[in-house]
């Protein structure tokens, strides 16, 4: 082999090593996260972690029940999705099918601004502006409620939902839309009976990734949901403070001694969070790939 070839081979191996960096990172992430999390179960039974309805980490003996946190995350996310999905899909349809090109070229960057705003700024806005509004409107003791969190998270999930749905809708082949119009259907009939169904896989992926974004969001919910670790009722729980998995980790990690049960419990909560978003991601990518158009 000539020197040139050896060099090529060497570079190729180096590039391969860098190529695998994402896999290595994900692998290490799993190891470190789970290792610290599992240590909790040397002292504390898994069954209690999964089924106990209380999270009292500083009581003696401490109680590390996942349920209030998990349900807290779920109620806030559910609330967020309930309004951001219809809103996001509607905006995506408008941008890709109705607005004239000049207007969509303004609308797209405007929605991208939402994606760029740091979560702590959303949290700050929610805390200072939205929470008082919620409190006054609903006449409840505090504006820091699951609902406030849902509204902020919904807004934050919008850019994900809009941009991926918009992609899916505009990748529906023009020929199919023309086929429908040529049969004498109106533009709207074409949109909701042909275009949107054809883009459904992409739209569902968008919704799932939106859910993933909302469930994993930390700073915003921590600043606006009031953080009380009780199992929320539904729908009454929307109007009371809740505490999510993410907020628990961020709030309590600063005050726990490294290596304590509480420390490991937070890693266990983190592991649950990670597994949840991992599953959502896998599903989203599967759905997205499944019905690609090849016309």
């Amino acid at each position, binding site marked *: 082999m000539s020197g040139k070839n050896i060099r090529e081979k060497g570079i190729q191996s180096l590039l391969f090593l860098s190529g695998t960096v994402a896999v290595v990172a994900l692998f290490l992430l799993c190891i470190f996260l789970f290792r610290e999390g599992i240590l909790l179960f040397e002292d504390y039974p898994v069954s209690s972690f999964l089924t106990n309805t209380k999270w009292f980490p500083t009581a003696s003996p401490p109680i590390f029940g996942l349920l209030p946190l998990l349900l807290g995350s779920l109620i806030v996310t559910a609330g967020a999705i309930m309004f951001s999905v219809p809103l996001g899909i509607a905006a995506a349809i408008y941008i890709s099918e109705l607005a004239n090109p000049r207007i969509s070229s303004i609308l797209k960057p405007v929605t991208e601004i939402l994606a760029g705003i740091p979560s702590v700024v959303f949290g700050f806005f929610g805390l200072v502006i939205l929470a008082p509004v919620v409190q006054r409107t609903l006449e409840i003791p505090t504006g820091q409620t699951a609902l406030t969190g849902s509204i902020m998270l919904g807004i934050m999930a919008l850019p994900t939902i809009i941009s991926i749905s918009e992609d899916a809708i505009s990748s529906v*082949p023009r020929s199919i839309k023309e086929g429908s119009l040529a049969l004498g259907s109106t533009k709207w009939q074409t949109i909701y*009976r042909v275009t949107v169904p054809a883009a459904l896989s992409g739209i569902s992926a968008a919704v799932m990734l939106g859910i993933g974004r909302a469930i994993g969001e930390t700073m915003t919910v921590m600043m606006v949901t009031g953080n009380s670790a009780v199992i929320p009722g539904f729908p009454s729980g929307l109007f009371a403070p809740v505490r999510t998995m993410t907020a628990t980790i961020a709030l309590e990690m600063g005050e726990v001694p490294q290596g304590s049960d509480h420390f490991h419990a937070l890693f266990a909560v983190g592991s649950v969070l990670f597994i949840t978003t991992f599953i959502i991601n896998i599903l989203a990518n599967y759905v997205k790939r499944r*019905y690609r158009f090849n016309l």
Partner: protein
Amino acid sequence: MPDNFANGTEIEVTNLNLWYGENHALHDISINIPKNSVTAFIGPSGCGKSTFLRCLNRMNDLITSCRTEGNVGINGQAIYTKDVDVVDLRKRVGMVFQKPNPFPMSIYDNVAYGPRIHGAKKNAIDGIVEDALKAGALWGEVSDRLNSPALDLSGGQQQRLCIARTLAVKPEVILFDEPCSALDPISTSKIEDLILELKKNYTIVIVTHNMQQAARISDYTAFFLLGDLIEFGKTEQIFESPKEKATEDYITGRFG
């Protein structure tokens, strides 16, 4: 130019001009298209034949930079006036496209799509679908799997499905925009047979880049060049004794 047709006139076009932005794509086209016959538009690519075809059901409206002047009448009714409902027009003037474009749904739903949209009664739809698929010469091949996805069909079957889908809306005119350009010879001949069958009940206009196809199936032929209608007449006349030099050059394969 012939205008006394045995079955009467279906489409009357007078002084039609069309621009894409600054580009003047069709110049002063006037033509009468006969009822219940097959009329073919031929010409080299870029001659405006497809553009013209899409004027007949106003599909060009979808292109924002596109502007038309002149009159087009279908069965005596002008279609470029303000009060015309484009949606209603397209119901009357169906279109089959270059590449088969079935919707990503089942075979049945593809054919049922039009009737459902136009408010056909639920219990009538089965019958409409069956009739349309029979008329589209596809029934025998798909009657046992109406609920399987349309995208599983072969290219030729997909195109016949698209024809059946158009028939289900019961149009008066069917426009074919190079319907066989993406198909193999066997599928092509099936579609040609089908078109000959359909002309008994419908007025057919077909754009084709294949002169043999025009000669085989059409009764009348129009030759387009660079946005002008050069010559229009009975197909035998166009192919055997063209009046214009340009037509003869094209027919004999000197350009195009």
